């Protein structure tokens, strides 16, 4: 199965190939899909024109929902309603780490975007802190265990503000981690 992230109405589809064995089984995240989806040339027209005019200045500590940046969705497992990574989540991050350490990603910077919808509170407020903590947990894990430089990753919690599946807030697709390439080219 391929998980496609359609970024903010732009024409850009950045995608990560997430290959799944039969339903509910553990997924294996192919690092090559991550690498591919984050490639700088995946930027959409808005970002490209900003890059060209020199007005692109993104530090990652704000919502990037309006920008057509190269993005991949990663299914990172957490324990329900916590920011504790599951082992499956850590296995996914091992793939992410392999991608981030590939030579062509050297020096590139990413926003690590946490998305989370609280089951009890789908009107957002309770969702933001957990989404932020999840993003922080991903950054900590990648920098602690895989030696990714901390200044390459900026955690940010979107809460329930940017749902992948608007029609169905409870969808698991809404609980996800995105990597967004924010490198100025």
């Amino acid at each position, binding site marked *: 199965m*391929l998980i496609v992230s359609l970024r903010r109405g732009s024409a850009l589809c950045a995608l990560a190939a997430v290959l799944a*064995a039969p339903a509910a089984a553990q997924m*294996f995240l192919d690092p090559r899909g991550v690498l591919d989806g984050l490639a700088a040339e995946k930027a959409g027209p808005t970002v490209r024109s900003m890059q060209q005019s020199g007005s692109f200045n993104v530090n990652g500590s704000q919502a990037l929902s309006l920008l057509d940046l190269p993005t991949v969705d990663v299914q990172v497992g957490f324990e329900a309603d916590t920011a*504790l990574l599951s082992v499956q989540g850590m296995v996914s991050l091992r793939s992410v780490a392999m991608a981030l350490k590939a030579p062509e990603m050297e020096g590139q910077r990413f926003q690590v975007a946490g998305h989370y919808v609280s089951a009890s509170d789908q009107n957002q407020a309770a969702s933001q802190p957990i989404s932020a903590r999840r993003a922080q947990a991903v950054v900590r894990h990648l920098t602690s265990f895989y030696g990714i430089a901390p200044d390459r990753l900026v955690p940010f919690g979107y809460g329930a503000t940017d749902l992948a599946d608007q029609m169905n807030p409870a969808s698991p697709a809404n609980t996800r981690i995105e990597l967004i390439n924010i490198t100025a080219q």
Partner: protein
Amino acid sequence: MLTGTLRALCAAIVILAGPALAETRVALVIGNSAYQHTTPLANPENDARDMAAKLSSLGFDIVEGYNLGLDELEDTVRSFAREASRADLSVFYYAGHGMSVDNINYIVPIDATLESEIDWEFEVYEVERILRYVQRANHASLIFLDACRDNPLADKLALLQGMGTRSISNRGISRIPTETLGTTGTVIAYATEPGQVASDGAGKNSPFTAAVLNHIGAANTDFAALTSRITRDVLASTDNVQRPRFDISLTGELFLNKVDTPITTSEVTEPTTPAPAQDTNLAVANLTVQTAIFEAAQASDDAADYQAYLDQFPNGPFAPLARNAIERLTRVASVPTDTETTVTDVATGPSIEQEQVTRMMSTPLELTATPAVQAQPANADTLRALNLDDRKRREVQLRLTLANIPVGAIDGDIGPTTRRGISAWQTQNQLQPTGYLNASQLEILMANTDAAFRSHMAANPTALDAPVRRQPAQVSTGTSSSSSSNNSGGAAAAAAAGVIGGVILCKALNC
């Protein structure tokens, strides 16, 4: 060894090495029936005498003792220790009452009263002490503990106020951490799953000992193959109620009865059992263990888990299935199957090779304490920040237990005992022993105990459901699943942990 050479020379005929007579074999056999302060047991003495006779016929020098008080037990073990130091293969067989307090296993001598919360420790004998003598000799060893019978003395002990919340099993021993057994080839055989009650038997022998006696002398049969026959017999004679457990980490074949008659390969084993694998690096475990691990792999459908099975049992019955599964998963991973969307320009050239990806997929995740992790504080605040709920705290305790760290009861209470365990675990993992976890440390613990944990949960789905906190005035007799988790692990965990050691047969610890 002779066997290998001749096999190489002559494909059709296998000539087994001349009776292992060059090899020195020593057995310690103890049977305690005549308990002075509780109901005597009918069978342990018979069991032990029959076992001694059988082992003697297999070329063992026997150090034996029946109905031993503590002093005689000490003396007997001391003589064994001397003998074992020169042995190539040693067996320890115990039938009688055993018990476990805070996961430490004890043999109960016949003169024990267990009436005082202070004195009891001076009345019993630590099983692990004997294992040290076995291990010091640096040779393969088999330990049979048939001590899983209902133990009224332990019940009495548990009732003493002074025992507080110590975890006492009235069903004999708990599982022995296999890491204590060295790397010389080990089998630990228990009459039943630790924490379950084994039958003393209505006849002359307990069902377990009867089955062992029946099969242990089978000619030219690898011990690993015997375990399934023993299991089959015990299940049959107990209406499937009692299932022996074997923690096996042999590094090669072990023949208790080698016969040097030239025989053709097809006659080496009984037709009812598969031929023992000939791979000398084979680690074998019984079918129950293999099934649990394989089922855990199926549940996750993760190539790394199938590989974990193969690492343990390269020639196991599920090995072909596991290999097929890995091939399937690897193929799926390398060929995007969804054509709805296009994977565009991978043309940049694969800076990540297929081989790298395949290797990563088939390697279980293992995290190590990097300098960055070592630098992260771990204290009461970081533990609190993890906000672990009750179940997760029990999970932490269970995972520590599966890592062979004693933490006392799996009760969700991160108290002094658990913190001591955390410190021990931290030391093992090159971390400051603070007794408190932080997020990265929790991740190391979770990742590195994953296979063992999933095997355990597959075998004990309710292991984390109910706290095993013992009520002050009663012994928790009804929580076999939780007490077995308390006992850390089970064979699956041991196998998954890849321990290599000697043979311990726990048949006779009347658990």
